[in-house]
């Protein structure tokens, strides 16, 4: 096992020369774990993905009683595409008849470890992503509440002293209470360890064009400095009343960097130079394009990219197939961009891909333009997902589990991220996650 060799080779050295450093809180801290990579990008391939059309590659065969099987996610998985009834591509002569050319010369499956059959017990979008980020099944969690258990962002920032702009949560919208998942309400963690959330399709979309684009960039010394001095005075008076506001702890320099980033993105958008995926422009693709820009600018230690266009499956199965295909292309683009355009992250980044839950075995009664029926998410089939991990120290071309042998659970993902970034012991020490096992522990 590559990982075992890695751990063996680094354990002694790490124990001997673990370098202490000072956390923002002033506490002396010594990292206890070795990192497998300095960056993790976690793609929540969310919105509810059926195993049948993704990893099992059954296309229309297992959903619409039409005998056409094949792989429509050929940047992620090995397998030949369908040859009959092509509706998953971009629009050519008829809707969806033009598949997007394969982007990666080697599939992500070949480059990493695939967990083919994983359990995901929460089948709602918010609850599912909440589980992905906290490593807990928060069944009693309300939809409009911040997580009660710490998010992976908070573990990372608290236990490794990582800056706010080194953790990003990039969502493809603001629905389903998604912005609430940037930090939890847990008393030992909380906002000061939260991530920078960004929903770029809103920020740089029509609303942003109207209300954010014309922002002034004030002069840092002549204008911002006196403005902030007055604000700090006013805030100090207010703090004396014991009414602080949640704050994710961006420094003034980090805030200035974010404001400049926003300004630059509007310019790049106007010039048509945002690094979107080569083909297609669905919401997920747009989100991935801006995610690439965030990675390039901030080189985060940890970032989550949340996608959910496939949720169209409730009422538009053809749209769902198109979204699976386009988002596979977008994820391939993201990985390709990291490896070829961000030198600091190339060969030093681990990519994790996981849906937040699956979708039903039986269809509902809603029929789309191709007379295909849609699928909701509530039954046992909705609790089936795949996981994939690609990066330094991770076995390549390894498949774990199969349809008849479920190995892994969605709550194993946060320990996996912690293990890659070297703070698994601290996270387990907090005793707040449902499982102590990373996906690596299950190999």
């Amino acid at each position, binding site marked *: 096992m590559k990982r075992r060799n890695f751990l063996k080779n680094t354990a002694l050295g790490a124990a001997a020369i673990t370098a202490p450093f000072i956390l923002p809180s002033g506490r002396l801290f010594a990292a206890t774990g070795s990192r497998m990579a300095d960056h993790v990008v976690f793609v929540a391939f969310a919105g509810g993905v059926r195993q049948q059309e993704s990893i099992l590659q059954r296309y229309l065969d297992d959903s619409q009683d039409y005998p056409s099987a094949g792989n429509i996610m050929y940047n992620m998985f090995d397998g030949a595409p369908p040859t009959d009834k092509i509706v998953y591509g971009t629009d050519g002569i008829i809707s969806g008849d033009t598949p997007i050319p394969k982007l990666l010369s080697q599939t992500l499956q070949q480059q990493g470890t695939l967990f083919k059959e994983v359990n995901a017990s929460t089948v709602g979008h918010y609850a599912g992503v909440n589980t992905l980020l906290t490593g807990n099944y928060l069944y009693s969690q309300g939809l409009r509440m911040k997580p009660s258990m710490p998010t992976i962002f908070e573990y990372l920032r608290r236990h490794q002293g990582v800056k*706010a702009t080194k953790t990003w*949560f990039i969502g493809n919208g*603001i629905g389903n209470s998604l*912005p609430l998942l*940037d930090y939890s309400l847990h008393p030992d963690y909380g906002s000061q360890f*939260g*991530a*920078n*959330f*960004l*929903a*770029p399709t*809103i*920020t740089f979309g*029509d*609303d*942003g064009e*109207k*209300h*954010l*684009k*014309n*922002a*002034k*960039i*004030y002069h840092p010394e*002549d*204008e911002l400095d*006196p*403005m*902030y*001095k*007055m*604000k700090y*005075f*006013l*805030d100090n*008076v*207010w*703090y004396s*009343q014991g*009414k*602080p*506001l949640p*704050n*994710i702890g*961006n420094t003034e320099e980090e*805030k200035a960097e*974010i*404001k400049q980033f*926003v300004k630059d993105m509007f310019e790049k958008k106007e010039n048509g130079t945002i690094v979107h995926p080569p083909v297609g422009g669905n919401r997920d693709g747009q989100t991935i394009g801006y995610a690439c820009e965030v990675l390039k600018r901030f080189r985060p230690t940890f970032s989550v990219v949340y996608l959910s266009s496939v949720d169209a499956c409730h009422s538009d199965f053809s749209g769902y197939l198109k979204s699976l295909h386009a988002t596979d292309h977008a994820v391939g683009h993201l990985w390709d961009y990291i490896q070829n355009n961000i030198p600091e992250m190339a060969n030093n980044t681990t990519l994790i891909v996981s849906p937040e839950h699956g979708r039903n075995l039986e269809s509902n009664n809603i029929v789309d333009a191709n007379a295909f029926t849609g699928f909701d998410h509530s039954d046992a089939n909705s609790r089936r997902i795949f996981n994939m991990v690609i990066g330094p120290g991770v076995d390549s071309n390894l498949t774990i589990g199969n349809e008849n042998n479920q190995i892994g659970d969605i709550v194993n993902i946060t320990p996996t991220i912690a293990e890659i970034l070297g703070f698994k012991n601290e996270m387990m020490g907090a005793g707040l996650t449902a499982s102590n096992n990373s996906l690596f522990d299950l190999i």
Partner: protein
Amino acid sequence: MKKITLLFFCLSVLATSCKKDDIIYDVNQVNATSYNANKNKLKTISQYISILYANLFQKALSANELVEITNCIESIGDKEVAHEIILSNFMNKSAVTMPSDSLMRTDVNAFIEQTYKRFYVRDLTEAEREFFLFFFASHPDVSVEMVYSAFSLSNEYQFY
């Protein structure tokens, strides 16, 4: 019967006994809004934007724009950053109603008092007055826009 009459008499005397007047010292009475004005509720994003817009433009924000701006703020996690960007967009519009810098400098005392009323809906304390008088004296280039921005972005302004 005598006892009942006596009891009735005593109760009547108690009920009509004299009431002590409130002491009024030899100064004018002033109705002052209390320090921090008992603000303990955090404004929602929509409330914050509506009030900010009304403060700056002296008119109400349209319902459509309220939804759009609320979306923009929700799309950026660091609310301080989001508010700053929205505010500086507002400040780029010509319809913002604020006094000129020269008018501010003419009577700094009155300007500070009005600004506290306008944004915080309360009177300022003497300590706050002293701070701003000193600050304006030591920062001759401070503009009304900077002062209004500082108040708009301050934490007290997030509460009502």
